[in-house]
């Protein structure tokens, strides 16, 4: 069953019957996932080059991985900071089957004498093209609003002045990690839906923070867990992988991720029965440009989805940055794969650590950092 269908089933039949009758619940999310990128092995030229600097359609990619491997980050921009065409847009162009211009320079060695190359590549011409993202599918996120006098352009979208609107970014009750709050079934090795293809969870996501405050039913109220994921870019679809632009912030990758959750027991059924009413997000004031922004209040996702929330007595219109329409599509496609026997549920080979917390970056002396 999809997560939506499962919640409906639990409402009419309860968790006991749900645990007996349902094997797997398919979750889904589609949102801006900035901590994404792709590594590509371009193949060797004649004569060969050890690439020291790489550009794909003008967007710099990371070199320094031997000779012809590069990593292009979703938020990478060219030297003009053209936000309408960042790394995410280059990745989307590749997935659309387009040719992308590759320029690279090297310093020349006895074994790699070539010093520059200017050519075109596509997913057809390269060896590997692999989406490998270090932090995706956040378990809950935040809501953003702006108390200040000017419109703010943020990674949480356009925030109008004087609490003119509020935005949020989670698929809520459909979101993978909110249906498995203590990571009982999702771990390293879990097979997932990634950008329209099959991929895997490869590690806990960066900034993994299982100790975030939770409601009595265990659902985190702040950004908590996240996933590091990997999948074959050559199998992905532009329907579930899209270059995005956040004005005056930069580019990001709109990505669909779905995770199947096996209903091991009634406890797991209770977890997957969670609804938007039970999931809370903190509303942060982005009018304060600090990493410790004040929390104005906590609201449920059902309030956020209603179109308006109350902030300091004002009715504030809300917007989602995460597409529920696409999240549902992800959960439906994943369900159809499982029913057709095309997608096998993979038990994690290792659980996520329980003891991670999020550290800050401070200006320190060498001694303080040691």
């Amino acid at each position, binding site marked *: 069953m999809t997560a939506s269908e499962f919640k409906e089933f639990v409402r009419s039949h309860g968790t006991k019957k749900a645990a007996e009758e349902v094997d797997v619940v398919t979750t889904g999310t589609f949102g801006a996932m900035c901590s994404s990128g792709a590594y590509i092995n371009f193949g060797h030229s004649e004569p060969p080059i050890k690439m020291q600097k790489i550009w794909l359609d003008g967007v710099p990619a990371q070199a320094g991985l031997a000779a012809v491997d590069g990593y292009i980050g979703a938020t990478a921009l060219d030297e003009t900071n053209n936000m309408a065409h960042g790394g995410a847009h280059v990745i989307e162009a590749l997935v659309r089957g387009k040719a992308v211009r590759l320029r690279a320079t090297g310093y020349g060695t006895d074994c790699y004498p070539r010093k520059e190359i200017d050519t075109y590549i596509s997913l057809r011409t390269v060896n590997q093209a692999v989406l490998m993202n270090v932090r995706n599918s956040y378990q809950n996120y935040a809501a953003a609003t702006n108390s200040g006098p000017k419109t703010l352009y943020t990674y949480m979208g356009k925030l*109008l002045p004087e609490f003119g609107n509020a935005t949020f970014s989670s698929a809520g009750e459909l979101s993978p990690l909110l249906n498995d709050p203590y990571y009982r079934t999702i771990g390293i090795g879990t097979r997932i839906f990634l950008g329209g293809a099959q991929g895997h969870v490869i590690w806990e996501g960066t900034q993994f923070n299982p100790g975030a405050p939770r409601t009595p039913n265990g659902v985190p109220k702040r950004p908590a867990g996240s996933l590091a994921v990997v999948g074959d870019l050559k199998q992905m679809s532009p329907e579930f992988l899209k270059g995005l632009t956040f004005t005056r912030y930069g580019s990001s990758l709109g990505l669909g991720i779905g995770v199947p959750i096996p209903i091991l027991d009634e406890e797991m059924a209770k977890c997957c029965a969670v609804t938007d009413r039970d999931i809370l997000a903190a509303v942060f004031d982005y009018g304060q440009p600090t990493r410790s922004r004040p929390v104005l209040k906590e609201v449920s996702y059902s309030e956020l989805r209603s*179109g308006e929330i109350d902030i300091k007595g004002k009715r504030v219109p*809300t*917007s*989602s940055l995460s597409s*529920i*329409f*696409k999240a*549902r599509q992800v959960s439906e496609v994943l369900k159809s794969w499982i029913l057709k026997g095309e997608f096998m549920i993979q038990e994690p080979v290792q659980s996520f650590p329980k003891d991670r917390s999020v550290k800050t970056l401070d200006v320190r002396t060498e001694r303080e950092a040691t």
Partner: protein
Amino acid sequence: MKTKVVLTFSPEASNQPITHNLIAKHSLMVNILRAEIDEVGGKMVLELSGKADHIKGGIDYLKASGVGVRPIKEGVRRDDDACTHCGMCVSICPTKALTIDLKSGKVSFNEEKCVACGVCIDACPPRAMEILI
């Protein structure tokens, strides 16, 4: 009847009292939804109310005065293939022309309500909204 039109002016046409003439000479009710002027001319979004033949007469007058007249539907366009239905545009649209349907999860664009203010253009992450005026 009511209709919404987008007017574009050259600097010369900007100097005529066209709103006054629409009201006084063509018996129309005029609601100015948006107006701006700069060194290359002006733009205005009007809602015209009145009898059908008066509206036609008013529009003919505008065209004869050198004012560009286009229906509001040609003000802002959505690329339905690019839209991911995230809903970012919903909370910033001042006229609620963009709304999200909770059942289908889809964002719909009601062109009749749009006043071509353009607030949605740079807010749309997949850049699905385009302003044509």
